[in-house]
């Protein structure tokens, strides 16, 4: 078990644990914070997969923006912080069953899958960030998805504002 594996396991367990916490805690803010921990875990995973730019992007985008947005939303909609009853709806058992089945299915498939034990080929020079930049804007590579993403973001931006705009006191 090399150092790397140990680190991997530690972080994996940490992230999964916090993911479980995300799903089970009653208090929403704690949920958000646990989510942030999961996101950090995943950023570390990206770093381990030597996708540096993605790791940092993950931090900036998820933790920097989305997590904070979530927290904002939680605070805005928390008139009755401690709602009565459990934080799970009536058919949570079905939820467990389905997710377990899904996980079991995926696990089986992954275990039987031939390409399971591929070792990571060595990575070439550090210029991956520039490649991403070039790939995003090169016409025959990913210009179109990039443009679509920008349009999508714009639409989401305007849509969110419009939907959440409080009509009463314009």
């Amino acid at each position, binding site marked *: 078990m090399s150092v*790397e*594996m140990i680190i991997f396991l530690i972080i994996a367990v940490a*992230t999964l644990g916090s*993911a*479980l916490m*995300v*799903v089970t805690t009653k208090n*929403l803010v704690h*949920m*958000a914070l646990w*989510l942030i921990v999961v*996101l950090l875990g*995943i950023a570390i*995973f990206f770093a*381990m997969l030597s*996708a540096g730019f993605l790791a940092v*992007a993950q931090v900036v*985008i*998820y933790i920097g923006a*989305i997590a904070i*947005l*979530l927290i*904002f939303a*939680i605070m*805005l909609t928390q*008139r009755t912080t401690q709602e009565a*009853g459990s*934080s*799970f*709806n009536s*058919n*949570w058992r*079905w*939820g*467990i069953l*389905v*997710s377990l089945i*899904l*996980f079991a299915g995926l*696990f089986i498939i*992954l275990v039987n*899958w031939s390409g*399971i034990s*591929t070792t*990571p080929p060595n*990575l*070439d020079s550090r210029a991956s960030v520039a*490649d*991403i930049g070039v*790939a995003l804007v090169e016409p025959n590579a*990913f210009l179109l*998805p990039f443009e679509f*993403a920008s349009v*999508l973001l714009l639409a*989401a931006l305007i*849509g*969110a*504002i*419009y*939907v959440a705009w409080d009509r009463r006191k314009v």
Partner: protein
Amino acid sequence: MISLSWYLIFAAALFCIGLFGVLSRKNAIAILMGIELMLNAVNVNLVAFWRYVNPGQITGQVFAIIVFAVAASEVAVGLALFISIYRRRGTIAADEIDLMKW
């Protein structure tokens, strides 16, 4: 060395946890967080495949970036919706938002 399956299994686990969250949480924002978890699991998968299967091309990474964009816009719009529902209905418990029932 860490093999690809580890990452995939981790991502699968994360995905299922997210799924459970989505399926069984009462609060809408909790559902949204569940979805975030699932999206991140997908991202991990993508980057893992990129790293292990085909590091030469950066399609995996670009795809992950696109998933970032989608996730971000999804959260933004979702939360906007929840806020406006909250303003009108006074609650964002998924069960109570069931106007579409027969």
